[in-house]
């Protein structure tokens, strides 16, 4: 009967109760949608960065993470890749070299970042392969060609098939190699399109003759179902005898991890404040209702209701408002998330927004359905709505029945 009484009490002021419920619902709708979108956006950023930069697990020259010295290469990279395939049979294992250099055309010289990749494997994970707008992507054994971005092509004033000379500094000396432009890509990122040169790994290895089968890194890319942290230990054990370091993507790209954590942590400040603000509506509704019911609450106490039961009644009213508002808000948030999760959300200008270099975003982000978080936020709204109702509930419970019954 207390539940029934709580419901009916809320329906005494239907407009006020409806406004409170709607405020909670709208607040939770926005919270759920924004959290789902934020988590989804970061998943896109992390996945793209992981694919383009480090993999979920990266093997690199010992001391590279601290020194970032491009000369710290791993030797016998094919053997390392085979070891890693034994540790993670379902993973894509990639070898890459990443170096700075100079690209010369008859018309200009431009400082560039050079990425030596295994063309077929790289094409599986790096979207740049799909963004070649003129010519074609690299071929594995074709050590005579490279691909560059549109902006770099303009700077050098070169077209498909034109000859350029790639220069790389190795241990104080310069190695140079003439190549032709096989493809021109466009990512939308000024940094990538104007700076990045991609060549087959074999080309780069040919320019680094002093090391056996060199690579800057060997990366392991896992499908979404495999927890990469579980494979770090076995990978380290398998490569324990080699002068390499085995890192998770979080260790290899700490800035990316930190940016993600900070951004998501910020949500845990913003949205609770929003929840608190809309909960004030619940408080207001209950206080108004309390003011109107002073005499009635006095009668309830007089006929034998215990103050704590009266406290529970008012708390239940806040809880009901919270439950209805949170239920509607959860539905609203999921409905709003749906198109953003299935069709994506275009955010122009995000191409250069990556917290790590040389990662191209296409500007389309997807929301994630995060059921645990969504339900957690809904429960938080219910909790807050119930907690704020503790004040009017306490006021009611400490009412003196004789004084209350004198109220008109």
């Amino acid at each position, binding site marked *: *009967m*207390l539940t*029934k*009484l709580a419901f*009916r*009490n809320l*329906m*005494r002021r239907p407009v006020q109760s409806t406004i409170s419920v709607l405020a909670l619902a709208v607040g939770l709708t926005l919270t759920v949608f924004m959290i789902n979108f934020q988590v989804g956006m970061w998943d896109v950023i992390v996945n793209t960065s992981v694919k383009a930069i480090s993999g979920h697990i990266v093997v690199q020259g010992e001391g590279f993470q601290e020194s970032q010295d491009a000369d710290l290469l791993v030797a016998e990279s094919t053997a390392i890749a085979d070891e890693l395939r034994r540790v993670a049979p379902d993973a894509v294992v990639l070898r890459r070299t990443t170096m700075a250099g100079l690209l010369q055309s008859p018309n200009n010289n431009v400082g560039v970042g050079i990425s030596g990749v295994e063309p077929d494997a790289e094409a599986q994970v790096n979207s740049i392969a799909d963004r070649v707008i003129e010519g074609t992507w690299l071929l594995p054994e074709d050590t005579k060609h490279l691909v560059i971005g549109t902006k770099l092509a303009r700077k050098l004033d070169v077209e498909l098939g034109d000859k350029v000379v790639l220069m790389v500094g190795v241990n104080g000396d310069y190695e140079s190699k003439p190549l032709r432009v096989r493809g021109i890509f466009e990512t939308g990122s000024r940094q990538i399109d104007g700076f990045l040169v991609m060549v087959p790994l074999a080309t780069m290895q040919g320019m680094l003759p002093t090391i056996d089968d060199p690579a800057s890194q060997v990366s392991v890319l896992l499908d979404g179902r495999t927890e990469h942290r579980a494979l770090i230990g076995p990978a380290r054990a398998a490569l324990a005898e080699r002068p390499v370091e085995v890192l998770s993507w979080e260790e290899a790209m700490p800035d990316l991890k930190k940016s993600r954590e900070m951004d998501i942590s910020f949500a845990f400040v913003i949205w609770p404040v929003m929840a608190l603000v809309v909960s004030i509506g619940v408080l207001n509704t209950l206080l108004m209702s309390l003011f109107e019911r002073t*005499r*009635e609450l006095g*009668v*309830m*106490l*007089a*006929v*034998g*209701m*215990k*103050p704590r*039961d009266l406290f529970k009644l008012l708390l239940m009213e806040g809880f009901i408002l919270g439950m209805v508002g949170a239920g509607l808000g959860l539905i609203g948030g999921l409905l709003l998330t749906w198109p953003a999760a299935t069709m994506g959300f275009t955010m122009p200008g995000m191409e250069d927004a990556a917290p790590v270099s040389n990662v191209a975003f296409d500007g389309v982000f997807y929301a994630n359905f995060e059921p645990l978080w969504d339900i957690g936020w809904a429960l938080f709204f219910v909790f807050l709505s119930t907690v704020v109702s503790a004040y009017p509930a306490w006021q009611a419970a400490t009412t003196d*029945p*004789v004084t209350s*019954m004198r109220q008109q």
Partner: protein
Amino acid sequence: MSIVSVQGAVRHYEQSNHVVKALRGVNLNIESGEFSALMGPSGSGKTTLLNLIGGLDTPTAGAITVDGTALSSLAPDQRSDLRRDRIGFIFQAYNLIPVLTAQENTEFVLMLQGVDAATRAKKARETLAAVGLAGMEDRLPSELSGGQQQRVAVARAIATEPAIVLADEPTANLDSETKAELIALMRKLNQEQGITFLFSTHDDAILEAATRVIRLKDGMIEADVLK
């Protein structure tokens, strides 16, 4: 057997920097089955005495026992239990819960007692029938006349079979005909079911029906007449 025993009850209030002596040493026993009325002019202490007996207020001095329990020995929760289980209340302004039907208002105190839903529904229906409201169980207070609302208040007060019903000016808001019907109803409940009633009233009709009239003046009993 005394249902209520008041020994030397004193009640002083602080009001605007002076002390109001609402009761100045009242001694009173109410026996089981009485149909008694407290009368007196405004400010004589009728409602104060009723509130003390009902455990809604505490005396400045003196002792009050209800149904064998000394109120001064009770913690607030125990007072609530005593009011719920042993005392029925009828107030001047009906004071029903407006969002509950007649049936639910009658069940309310039974619900507080923890009586199961089926038993309390049956009890409430029987009690409403006893006060002449059969067929009106599902009406809200706003759908009932003043007399009918006060009958629901009577039903709520007696549904728990209390040791005593305290009625504070129960007929004050009623017309003569309704008033007479309500007094007849309460007298009938008193005579047929042995329910003890103690009224605070100015109403001549109640004073006429009462078996005992206790006259208060300036916080003291001026006369106590058994008819």
